[in-house]
């Protein structure tokens, strides 16, 4: 037994054990200290009263729904709010987009980009997203080359992926 524990083996073994313990501790802490996405994001998009609902388990191709809320605005319209992290596209990394839809019809009431993935040195133009307000989510085509949200192609598609995700989710959970 002692023969196996040569000095070099001892060195490597100590390091490995320390590494394993450290990584395990960090993994546990990472779970404990998880910060859920912010609720106020929805109010920023469209003023209304929201309640959190469980995110339905839907297989989504273009991104993830991190948070879902339902609410009512001052006119009693029922709303669905989705906090979406889209898959990136090409060079653009994931975008986090907040989309508020009218529950019955699927009309986009409001949306904004909460977190940008890299979109190169270009700024993104909020007014371009405003174009989508009032249109129906069913009309969104994720590969539409006409929809330019940011200054760069890949990042525009990344944002559109968020809308495509919303479309998939909405049609699966709330559609007929």
């Amino acid at each position: 037994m002692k023969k196996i524990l040569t000095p070099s083996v001892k060195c490597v073994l100590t390091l490995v054990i320390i590494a394993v313990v450290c990584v395990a501790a960090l993994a546990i802490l990472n779970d404990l200290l998880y910060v859920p996405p912010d609720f106020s994001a929805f109010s920023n998009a469209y003023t209304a009263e929201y309640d959190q609902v469980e995110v339905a388990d839907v297989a989504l191709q273009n991104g993830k729904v991190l948070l879902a809320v339902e609410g009512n605005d001052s006119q009693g319209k029922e709303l669905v709010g989705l906090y979406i992290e889209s898959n990136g596209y090409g060079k653009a990394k994931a975008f986090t987009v907040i989309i508020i839809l009218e529950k019955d019809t699927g009309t986009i009431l409001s949306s904004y980009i909460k977190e940008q993935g890299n979109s190169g040195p270009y700024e993104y133009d909020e007014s371009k997203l405003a174009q989508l307000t009032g249109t129906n989510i069913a009309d969104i085509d994720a590969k539409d080359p006409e929809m330019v949200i940011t200054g760069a192609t890949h990042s525009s598609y990344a944002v559109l992926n968020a809308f495509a995700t919303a479309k998939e989710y909405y049609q699966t959970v709330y559609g007929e």
Partner: protein
Amino acid sequence: MKIKELALDGIIRQNPALKLVLGTCSILALSNEAINGLGMGAAVTFVLVCSNLVISILRNIIPDKVRIPAFILIIATFVTVVKMLLYYLGSKSAAIMGIYDAMDIFLPLIVVNCIILARAESFASHNTVGMSVLDGLFMGIGYTVALTLLGAAREILGSGSIFGVSLWNFKIEFFTTPAGAFMTYGLFIALFTFVYDRIVRKRKLGGAKILKPKTTEV
């Protein structure tokens, strides 16, 4: 008695920021406002105490050849802990999120802050757990005090406020720039050494009797 020695060392005699001049990158970057200095100081103190604690416990187990990699591994773990903690607390309090944002890349850079590795190597690996923890604590306090004072100076002179509370309208914006950081820090070090030497000299002269050789008159 030994505790007092450690405290004096950490805070004054071997102040990491003003005497040993270690970890300068963080000092220059985070001294623009007093609250940032305080926050960074607290984070560094936390890592110092924790890493000194663990390294001291393991000091007889870690083989000499791999001690530096082992130390760095342990320090990196605690820095990650601080990062997670700060982000978590930041999501609950805007003030803490402000500090987290101000620290930006200097939070992970704590792992290469020379102070922590230096104390681990020179103190924690040879001393008992209790003493090592205290050493980490006092060194951290010394660092925090220096950094907060520097931050306060730059904030008062540069933005006319202290801890975010506006004092007056007189501002010399120079002090908020990198150049101001360098110069203020340099002057602080000079001032500290000056005062320190003065006090040391006074103590020596005051304590011991000055024995002058009697000139023999022929």
